[in-house]
Every structure is written in structure tokens, then in C-alpha cells.
């Protein structure tokens, strides 16, 4: 199935010994000029790239305290060394968070600190962990800063909260600015600017898709559940990852949101202009591009005259939405101040459940025994609800309200200790499949344990990337590819639509009438 070895499940999760360089060959495709230019980056590696890279680094050091501080204060204690899923799955020493940071830190030390300059002049920069910026170093950067999914697990266990995601983002921004961009992320951002979503799905195609969904749901339930698009004057703007429009199991989640809105008679709409929740500007560490993508949501909300913004199930998107949207595209003083901006669909559904406005038939999910995968950026870079940790409680409460069988995985692999799916942070591309498969190992091991102990059959998630990643890599580990489900898919399965009862009654009355006529 693959031209690399799929890691074996470890009987006892012993921390692997480091093997420097075994994943040095893993590099995503480099962005060509057509994908670099729309983002404002040079089309290819510029001639004076060393100078340009150091200039950019200086610029970023002045703009981001996180970068400056994190490069200075690491004491190399080693607490993070066994925390990265890519290290555990690949055993490459450079996938230890501190070693990954050191790839940038050694250049910082060489050119921006007294110690590095001093020992550099003596010809022994390595004495203080400094190194010249050479082509080899740039190659290392390209390889290993694309082996970080910006999941922040390392930052949880660092005594100073050093977050490798911040370092990876800066490194990618530096590489982009000298013309060494990553095709996958940059092409996608270009599509958002041009079409409005990551898939490049134009408005008419989106409209067709949504009409098709309305028909499917009607065939299934006999209820006219609407999937409105660009409806001015709607109360709620739903911004959801574009994968929700066509990919499995994402689309079943979208049907779940629509059923919830329908059941409580909410007035809502999607936008073709802002038909994407994900914001890949974060992956490449570009404030400007992240802001441009975010402003589309602001504009859509203003143009459609909505009062609230709700985000669909998406991990990194929810980080940008929850933590950054107000900064990037605020203030949202034109929206209803009674609701947080933005809200997560899980917050919305959970609120309705607590108010008793949704009724469920849990037995509809009885064919599944569930566990829940906390998506990294929801877990460690955002919140839901009005208390710390709501991002863990609320999705689980929704699952428990809609399913009879739920078991959590090992506590060391959930909540804020959760492992990334292996495909986050701009790495969900086929040119990185080896990395994605290997990086999923810790999550797969935890899943295997609940499968064996509790007979778990399905894992629920609230992130488009997680869902796509697991669909792809489950078969490598012997799981069925459809064992991953959306949380709102469970809602969709179990929700009792009031109209459905009416429709069923009418249908049976018509049938009876037809029988008597005969």
C-alpha cells in the first residue's frame, strides 16, 4: 500500500530513541510562481535569499514577542522531546519540538545575539548552539518546518509555554518571503481570494450542491430542511469549512447543523463569498494573508445584514475564529451584542439542548460505540462556552445527548493532552502522506486501546482536517475508513424533527385513505 513502512503499534508506549535525519526526505511540493504571486511573495528563491531571510527574521522578531522570547529562553530541559506525534511516529530527532525550534534558533543565535556573533567570529558558533544560514540549513527548514502541524502539544508541557507553532509559522513566513513557499497552502489561499473557498467551488456549484442536499434530506425524512445560500436579512451567517459541502463524513455534519436550525425555526444562511471557515493564512504565519481571508467573513456578514456568526466544525478555523477574528476583522459592533462573535455550532446546539428545545432518539446511533478525538487547535488554542475547558465538555455533552455508547480514550491522549490527527497545519496533502501516516501513530494507538477494551466502533471529531486525515489513514492501521464521524452527524441521526412526525402522520393517513378507496 505504501512505499514506506507503516509504524507498528507499540505494546508498551516506550519513547523511541532519536534518529537524526530519517525524515529529511519528507518535503511538500514547492509553490510555483502562480501560487506565490497572489499572496505577495516572490515567484522563486531570490538571489540574495540569505540577506532577505535575515531581514525578514529581524522584522518578525520586532513584531512577535512570542518569537523573540521563545528563541531566547529555551533551556533545553527536554520536557517537550517526547511530546510531538511526529517524533513518536517517525523517531526523527529533528521532530522533537526543541530540535525543530533549534533549526531556527541556531540562525537567530548566530546573527542576532552577542554570544552567537562572538563565537561565530571565533569560528566555533556551534559552541553556543549557533550556525551560519547556509543552503543546507534552508533545506532543513523546508523539510522540518513542514513536519509540524502547529498543534501546540509541546507548549502544554514546556515550563515557559514555548510554542513550536509560533516558530514554525515564523519560519514558513520567512521562507515564503524569500520565494520558497509550500504549494498546498499557498494554492489554497489563492483559491479563497479568487473564488471564496479552499476547494475553488464557485457560487453556482455550491448552490447545486445545497439543492441536492435539500432533496437528499427530504427523501430521507420527508421534511423540507433548507440549506439557504446568500439570503439577505437572515439572522445567522454560518461559516463552515468547504469540505462540509462534499466530503464524507463532513457533509453529514452539515446536514446536522441544518436540521438543528430547522428544528428551532432559526433564520440562517451560508455565504458564497465567505464559503470557507478554514484560514490557511495561519499555517504560513502570515498576518496579512490571514487578515485578508478573515475580512471576507466580515464583508459577507455586513452585506447579508446578519446579526450573528456561527462557525461549523473545524479545528484550526475555530482557532482563527475564536482567538483571532475579533483582532483581524473586528470590531463586530454591527452584530447582536447578546451573542459571542463568533459562536461555534457546538455552543449553539448545546445551548438548545440545555433549553430542552431539541429532542433525540438516541437509539438511532445504537449501531455505533463512540469515542471522541479532541482536535488540537480547538483543545489548546480556543474555547467554547463561558468556562475554561468548555471546548472539551460541550462536544462530549452533545455526543452523550445523542448516543447511548460513549467511551473516552486514554487521559494522556485527550483534552489538552490530545494528539494531533497528523494532518493539521497545512500538511493535509498527498505529497506528505508518509508523514501523515506516521504522525497518526499515537492517536491510532489510543484508538486501538478503546476498540479492544470497550468495543468502540467509531470516533467522532469536530474538525474538517481531522475527518479527512482519518478517512485517509485509517486503512493503513487496519481501521475502516468510515469509522470517523462528525459530531453533528450524530445529532443528525438522532434528532427528532417535529415536522417529520407530522409528515409521517400525513403519509400514513394518505396511505390509509388509498387503501379504503381500493
Amino acid at each position, binding site marked *: 500500500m505504501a512505499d514506506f513502512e507503516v509504524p507498528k503499534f507499540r505494546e508498551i508506549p516506550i519513547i523511541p530513541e532519536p534518529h537524526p535525519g530519517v525524515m529529511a526526505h519528507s518535503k511538500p511540493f514547492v509553490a510555483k510562481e502562480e501560487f506565490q504571486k497572489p499572496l505577495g511573495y516572490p515567484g522563486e528563491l531570490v538571489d540574495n535569499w540569505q540577506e532577505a531571510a535575515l531581514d525578514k527574521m529581524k522584522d518578525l522578531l520586532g513584531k512577535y514577542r512570542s518569537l523573540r522570547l521563545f528563541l531566547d529562553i529555551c533551556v533545553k530541559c527536554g520536557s517537550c522531546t517526547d511530546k510531538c506525534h511526529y517524533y513518536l511516529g517517525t523517531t526523527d530527532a529533528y521532530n*522533537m519540538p*526543541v530540535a525543530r525550534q533549534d533549526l531556527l534558533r541556531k540562525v537567530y543565535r548566530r546573527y542576532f545575539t552577542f554570544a552567537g556573533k562572538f563565537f561565530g567570529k571565533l569560528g566555533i558558533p556551534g559552541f553556543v548552539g549557533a550556525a551560519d544560514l547556509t543552503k543546507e540549513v534552508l533545506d532543513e527548514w523546508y523539510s522540518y518546518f513542514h513536519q509540524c502541524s502547529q498543534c501546540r502539544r509541546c507548549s502544554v508541557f514546556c515550563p515557559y509555554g514555548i510554542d513550536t507553532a509560533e516558530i514554525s509559522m515564523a519560519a514558513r513566513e520567512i521562507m515564503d518571503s524569500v520565494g520558497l513557499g509550500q504549494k498546498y497552502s499557498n494554492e489554497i489561499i489563492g483559491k479563497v481570494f479568487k473564488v471564496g473557498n479552499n476547494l475553488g467551488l464557485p457560487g453556482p456549484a455550491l448552490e447545486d450542491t445545497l439543492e441536492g442536499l435539500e432533496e437528499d434530506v427530504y427523501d430521507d425524512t420527508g421534511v423540507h430542511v433548507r440549506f439557504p445560500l446568500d439570503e439577505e436579512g437572515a439572522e445567522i451567517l454560518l461559516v463552515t469549512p468547504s469540505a462540509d459541502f462534499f466530503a464524507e463524513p463532513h457533509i453529514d455534519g452539515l446536514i446536522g447543523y441544518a436540521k438543528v436550525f430547522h428544528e428551532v425555526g432559526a433564520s440562517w444562511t451560508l455565504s458564497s463569498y465567505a464559503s470557507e471557515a478554514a484560514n490557511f493564512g495561519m499555517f504560513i504565519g502570515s498576518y496579512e494573508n490571514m487578515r485578508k481571508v478573515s475580512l471576507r467573513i466580515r464583508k459577507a456578514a455586513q452585506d447579508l445584514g446578519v446579526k450573528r456568526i456561527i462557525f461549523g466544525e473545524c479545528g484550526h478555523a475555530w482557532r482563527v475564529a475564536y482567538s*483571532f477574528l475579533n483582532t483581524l476583522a473586528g470590531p463586530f459592533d454591527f452584530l447582536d451584542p447578546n451573542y459571542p462573535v463568533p459562536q461555534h455550532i457546538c455552543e449553539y446546539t448545546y445551548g438548545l439542548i440545555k433549553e430542552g428545545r431539541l429532542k433525540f432518539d438516541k437509539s438511532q446511533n445504537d449501531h455505533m460505540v463512540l469515542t471522541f478525538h479532541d482536535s488540537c487547535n480547538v483543545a489548546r488554542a480556543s474555547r467554547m462556552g463561558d468556562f475554561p475547558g468548555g471546548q472539551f465538555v460541550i462536544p462530549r455533552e452533545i455526543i452523550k445527548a445523542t448516543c447511548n455508547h460513549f467511551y473516552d480514550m486514554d487521559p494522556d491522549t485527550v483534552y489538552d493532552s490530545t494528539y494531533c490527527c497528523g494532518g493539521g497545519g497545512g500538511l493535509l496533502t498527498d505529497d506528505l502522506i508518509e508523514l501523515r501516516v506516521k504522525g497518526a501513530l499515537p492517536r491510532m494507538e489510543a484508538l486501538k486501546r478503546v476498540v479492544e477494551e470497550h468495543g468502540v466502533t467509531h470516533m467522532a471529531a469536530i474538525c474538517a482536517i481531522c475527518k479527512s486525515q482519518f478517512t485517509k489513514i485509517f486503512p493503513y492501521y487496519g481501521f475502516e475508513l468510515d469509522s470517523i464521524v462528525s459530531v453533528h452527524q450524530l445529532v443528525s441521526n438522532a434528532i427528532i424533527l417535529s415536522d417529520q412526525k407530522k409528515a409521517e402522520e400525513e403519509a400514513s393517513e394518505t396511505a390509509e385513505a388509498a387503501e379504503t378507496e381500493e
Partner: protein
Amino acid sequence: MSTVSVIYAALFYFATAVLVLGVAYKIYVYAKTPAPLKIPTTPAPLTVAGVVWRMFREVVFFHSLFRGNKWIWLFGWVFHFSLFLVLARHLRYFTNPVWDWVVLIQPFGKYASFGMVIGLLGLWARRFLVARVRFITSPSDHLMLALLVAIALSGMSMTFVSHTDIVSLKAFFLGLIAFDPQPLPADFNLLVHLALVATLMIVFPISKLLHAPGVFFSPTRNQVDNPREKRHLAPWAAELERQSST
């Protein structure tokens, strides 16, 4: 006054200047460099009081490190807590009269030096024995540990083996503080100890020892989790906004 006394007086003025000015400069840089985005590692406190409590747990108990690795935590915490007691005890050489609480912790401060050495040796052993830590260790990391161990041992030699002329020593430092230099006892152990301490002070602002002031500025630990309630905007980001709206 002997040449040695003059050299040491000059050395300590220099080291103090480097330490104070260097750290002050670094703190200034950290304080003025904006954190343009809200990036607390969540779950994070929703209030400033909550952040103070989180920081207190980090600085006093090394809470995140405890979650991360029990061995590093054990050695690291024992070293730092011992260092705190030892430093506090040393205040007696710089104050006259000696503060009551410093008198009170004197015995603890003396024996804490063993804790320092044990903690340091534990951390150092990991740099040799654990392959992952060995990989991330630079020569300067070994040297830093060697320096601290040497400071501890040279100090302990005067506490537990052969006492130095502590009265003259105190006169020397009080003299430095009053800008009225006094002679320093030319005791070998003492001269070694003081030279190493001065080295540490000079290295402090240009090394990873910056983690001490730095931790307080870490945006993943010191930010309040309230991005939806309160708009967070860095000055350069506001400027960017102004430019793109015109």
C-alpha cells in the same frame, strides 16, 4: 589595598553593571515587542487574577514541567528551590544589620547547597544518559552546568570545610555598595567562588538564563482568555489596518 582586591572590586562593579543593564535591556525588549494575537495555551484563565495564579503555579511549582516530565521536574525544582534558599541566605553579606528572616533561614540556606548540587548533577546526568536530551545539548549547556556546580562546590567548601574570613568579606561587599572599596581576604576558595559568580552574572543576559525574567512575558502563559469579549490589537497591526482602509 592589594591588587587582587582592586581587581575583584572592579570585576564586581562590571559584572553587576552587565547583569543589571543587560537584563533591564532584555526586559525592555520583551515588554515593548507586541504579541499581536491572542495565543494563551488553553484552557486558560478568563481573568487577570486567574493569570496571576497560573503564573504563580508555573514559577513556584513548575506546573507545566511537572506534567511534562517527572525527573526533570524533580531535579529542576530541587535545584531552583535550593538556589532560592542559598541566595536568600547570602543576603546576610550585603545587609547590615541582617534582616530577621534571613537569620531565620540561615541553617536551611546552608544545607540547601546540597540540594543545588544534587539537582544540578541529576540534570547533568540526563544530558549524558538520555539520548533525546543528549541530542539537544550544546557545549555551552554543559558549561553552564559546570559553572553552577563549581559555584556550589566552592561555596560549600567555605561553609563546611574551611571557613573564610567572613567578616572581612562582608566589609568588602558593604564597601562596594557604599562605593568605599575595602580589602578582600585573599583566600583561594573564596577567590574562585567569587570569580565564578561574577562570570555567571556576566553571562546571564546573553544566555538561556534569560528564562528567569522571560517566563513572565510568555504570551502563552500570561494572556487572559477573552478574545471574543475584548478586541486585542497590536500597534503595528492597527497601523496596517489604517493603511489598508485608506
